């Protein structure tokens, strides 16, 4: 595994600086560690010889102050680097998904996992594992090099024994890997059990099964303990073996130093220094192993996130919904958008969902000028898909779409947690309160909103909770009214409304269509009767369509 994938630095440029600082601090800390060994050995020598200790003591304190400052900076930078890199990665992922057509996005569940847990697990990877890695690379090297100058014999011993550690670690890893992997699946099941039954607690209590579950929980948790301990025993044993190995290696250095000291072939100061430096060659390597366990998730998340964010970017950075989707023939002149006819032109359009060869749309032609165009057709004939294609949210399998900036009102009104104002101004750009109230008045909701104690600040729950289905449908119509898009695409805008509110909504739609191109998919006859143009879609080849 590569410690830092260069792709990360390319895809997340914000990572460069903190990672650079981290590396620099790591190197400085390594130097300070070596300095400490010198200071400490000279202090001990001074004490032993009865010489004045002041200068050695001052040296030690200065080095330790330097280490304290470096530790403080290192901790702070590491924490900041962790959040910076994971935040930047998350932002790049989301930004990329928001500017990609639906086919280029991972599935919803996968996307959520990658952007939440995945990006979060990068944080300990950067904040803990990478600094440990820097230390592991810097300190042993410095220790061996210093030893070579101070006492080449000890350096030789270290150089000869140091490779034993990784070799030994690999050997232990190879013998335990199978056992660990075998247990891993079972372990995940067992540890998930409690979360599962707690989440399902309301269901279990509703059927009077809550009390009985307690016994099962104890049994499963004990099973979990046994399985975990079996895995942990191996892990602990291998780390104990490595520690023992490191201790033995240090002991070999100490024994040779001791023998040479007692023969008088080496100075006390040199001998002490060798004994203090030798462990520094072994320790950091072991710490990397320990930190790696907490970083494994982060490494895996990086591996799956990087291909997503390093994929080629679309040229522009605008929102796709507002970007004219063009076949390249006649790009709309950006200079005078007001004069450009607000139309949608669809030619020979075909679409099949990713991973499927069946075409939901095939050879669709449609021209919708300014005014109201109503699209009808049997259920499942691809009406919603057509609107998504016109909005540029999907890439046609064949054919071309030409449309100005679009605003699509989806079949299920899209409202989210936040205030009414936030919801009504989603994608509209800056809008005055007066304009919002005017739009609400037109959809007949001004009274309802004014009656709320917080007015436009009224919080909306998830999915627009707090408002009825009919009100939600009218809220998103008000938002469409506020949007400055040239083309409005409405997917079943009045399906959930009673006749009276539907009539209000239809009036609003008709009014919108006076200056813009409005394409509406509907089952409602009333709306069809108001249309300037009517397009009847047929079901594709297999099922004969029943045009409305």
């Amino acid at each position, binding site marked *: 595994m590569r410690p830092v994938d260069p792709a990360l630095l390319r895809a997340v440029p914000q990572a460069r600086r903190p990672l650079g600082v981290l590396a620099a601090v790591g190197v400085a800390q390594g130097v300070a560690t070596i300095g400490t060994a010198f200071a400490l050995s000279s202090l001990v020598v001074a004490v032993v010889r009865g010489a004045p200790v002041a200068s050695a003591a001052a040296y030690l304190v200065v080095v330790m102050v330097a280490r304290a400052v470096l*530790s403080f900076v290192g901790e702070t930078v590491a924490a900041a680097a962790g959040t910076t890199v994971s935040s930047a990665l998350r932002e790049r992922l989301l930004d990329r998904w928001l500017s990609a057509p639906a086919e280029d996005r991972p599935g919803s569940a996968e996307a959520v996992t990658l952007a939440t847990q995945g990006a979060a697990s990068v944080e300990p990877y950067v904040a803990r594992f990478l600094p440990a890695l820097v230390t592991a690379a810097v300190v042993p090297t410095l220790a061996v090099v210093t030893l070579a100058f101070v006492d080449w014999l000890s350096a030789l011993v270290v150089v000869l024994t140091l490779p034993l550690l990784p070799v030994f670690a690999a050997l232990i890893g190879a013998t335990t890997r199978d056992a660990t992997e075998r247990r891993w699946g079972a372990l995940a099941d067992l540890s998930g059990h409690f979360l599962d039954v707690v989440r399902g607690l309301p*269901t279990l209590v509703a059927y009077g099964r809550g009390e009985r579950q307690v016994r099962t929980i104890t049994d499963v*948790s004990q099973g979990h303990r046994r399985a975990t301990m079996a895995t942990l025993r191996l892990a602990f044993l291998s780390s104990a073996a490595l*520690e023992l190995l490191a201790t033995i290696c240090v002991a070999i250095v100490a024994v040779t130093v*001791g023998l040479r000291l007692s023969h008088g072939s080496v100075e006390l100061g040199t001998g002490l220094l060798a004994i203090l430096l030798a462990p520094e060659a072994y320790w950091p390597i072991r710490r990397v192993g320990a930190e790696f366990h907490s970083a494994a998730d982060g490494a895996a998340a990086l591996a799956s996130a990087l291909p997503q964010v390093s994929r080629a970017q679309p040229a522009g950075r605008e929102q796709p919904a507002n970007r004219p989707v063009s076949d390249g023939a006649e790009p709309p002149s950006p200079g005078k958008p007001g004069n450009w006819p607000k139309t949608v032109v669809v030619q020979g359009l075909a679409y099949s969902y990713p991973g499927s060869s069946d075409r939901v749309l095939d050879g669709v032609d449609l021209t919708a000028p300014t005014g109201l165009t109503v699209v009808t057709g049997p259920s499942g004939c691809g009406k919603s898909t057509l609107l998504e294609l016109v909005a540029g949210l999907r890439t046609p399998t064949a054919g071309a779409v030409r449309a100005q900036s679009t605003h699509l009102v989806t079949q299920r009104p899209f409202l989210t947690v936040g205030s009414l104002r936030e919801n009504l101004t989603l994608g509209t750009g800056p809008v005055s309160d007066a304009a919002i109230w005017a739009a609400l008045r037109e959809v007949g909701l001004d009274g309802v909103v004014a009656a709320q104690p917080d007015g436009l600040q009224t919080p909306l729950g998830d999915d627009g909770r707090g408002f009825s289905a009919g009100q939600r449908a009218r809220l998103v119509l008000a938002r469409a009214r506020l949007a400055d898009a040239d083309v409005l695409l409405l997917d079943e805008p009045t399906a959930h409304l*009673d006749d009276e509110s539907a009539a209000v909504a239809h009036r609003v739609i008709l009014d919108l269509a006076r200056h813009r191109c409005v394409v509406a998919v509907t089952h409602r006859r009333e709306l069809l009767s108001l249309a300037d143009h009517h397009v009847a879609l047929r079901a594709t080849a297999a099922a004969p369509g029943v045009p409305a």
Partner: protein
Amino acid sequence: MNRRSPRILAAGALGATALGSGVALTATSGWLVVRASERPVILTLLTAIVAVRTFGMARPVFRYWERLRSHDAALDDLATARADLYAALVPLTPARLPRRGRAAMLAGVVDDLTERVEAQVRVTVPFVTTALAGLATVLLCAWVEPAAGLVVSGLLVVAALTTLLARLLETRSMDALVAARDDVARVTELVASQSLDLQAVGAGGQAIEWVRDAQRRVARASRVQSRGRAVATATLPLATAVATVGCALVATRTDHSAAVSALLVLAPFALAEVFGTLPEAARAWARASAAERRLSQLLDERPGVAAPPHAAAVSAAPVITPADRKAGTHVPHLRLRGVGASWDGRRTALQGADLAVAPGQVVAVTGPSGCGKSTLLAVLARQLDPATGSYLVDGQDALGLPVERVRALFAVVDDEPHVFATTVRENLRLARPAALDQDLLEAVGAAGLGAWLAGLPDGLDTRLGASGRGLSGGERARLSIARALLSQRPVLLLDEPVAHLDHPTALAVMADLLAARGERSVVVVSHRPEGLAEAHGIMDLTRTTVAPRDPVPDAVPTLP
């Protein structure tokens, strides 16, 4: 539940032996090297050589032993704590759990419990270990030279104070950080799962701004939090250095042998490694305390239903005999008169509700959000005690009947049905453990899942949930309905069962449900009138009385 198990303390003692061996290793090595440089007869060094070797071996061995014991004890405690927590949650369910975001909240409870139990390994063990190893070093130094012992004990006090300071700093920003992280997770989930909707209205840029805002708050809070750890990691080595110099000064002012002087200088310095675990332990401590606080807040709630009624009421309660229930014949007559209720004892959630449900009737409850629709169902299902008014089951006061018996009349279907990570069979049988496969198949068919089941690779043995097959929203709702039908409970309470479903699916689910209900009564709360043309009464809670059958507003799409 917050006891410090003696097994954890024993593990701490093992850990202290390991760390103490480390200190002793450094100290005796120093002694040995200095003594060797005086070129004595080799034999006089033998004891020290054996000691160095022993300490060197003891450190990894005792560390291994400590980790094994502490983890085993913590996992054992976790098993007990989980069972205890579950038992404590049962009476609080569902009335004391938030109605929205309940699954996320319960997942948080699981994390908090783990955090609290793991604190034994991540907080108690390091503290015990450090304290004991530190004390042993103090004793060693004091035995050699009392003044040095004093210096080292000063170092221990500084280490303890630093840890407390670190914990304080961490705690101060803990809530802000947790809230900010939750916010990032919420916004991220929204953006990642609804990219298409956001693109549709051209709100991609705004969505990224939301994420940025939330992440900026995380960065701020984490900056503040990292100070705790940074202060500890900086202070501890510095204090160790000062103590080392102090001991060096002590050694020069006394007339110990050269080797013993070396020991006096190196022993306190070796404590730096002992203190290495403290910053992390301080953070874990702060987190565990926060988890503990959240858990006790929840568990201190009073159950939504008062203690079981007194014995007299139990004996006079022949409402439904078990035989009735088994046969599924007796459908009770339900009557609410002027019922008011409150979830928190302060705000009234339902006021003066009158409702009568004759056996076999379908009653729809409508009304604006917050008018108490769900509260009404909770009172009917005996999940929540009414504050005022009376609730009669077959003419008897429901509050006088055993809670379990009244609850057993109702099968509740809400809009967040849980699918357990087990087989289809077990997912259904929780509603009626004695059910045979034949019963399961009937219920599945009646709930409109027959074709779905037929398409499953292993039929009833197919695994669902987290590690198994995913279910669509409609399948989930239908599974919940199949459970309700299987349970043979005589009254179905439906709380917005189709709120998450698209229109045609909602219509189909409701139609199938009403067709399959048989003799059962149904009380349905919905703001969508799908498929309720059959309702015998519409109760508009803004009027709080059941209106006579009036036509349901026709919002069914008019198909051309």
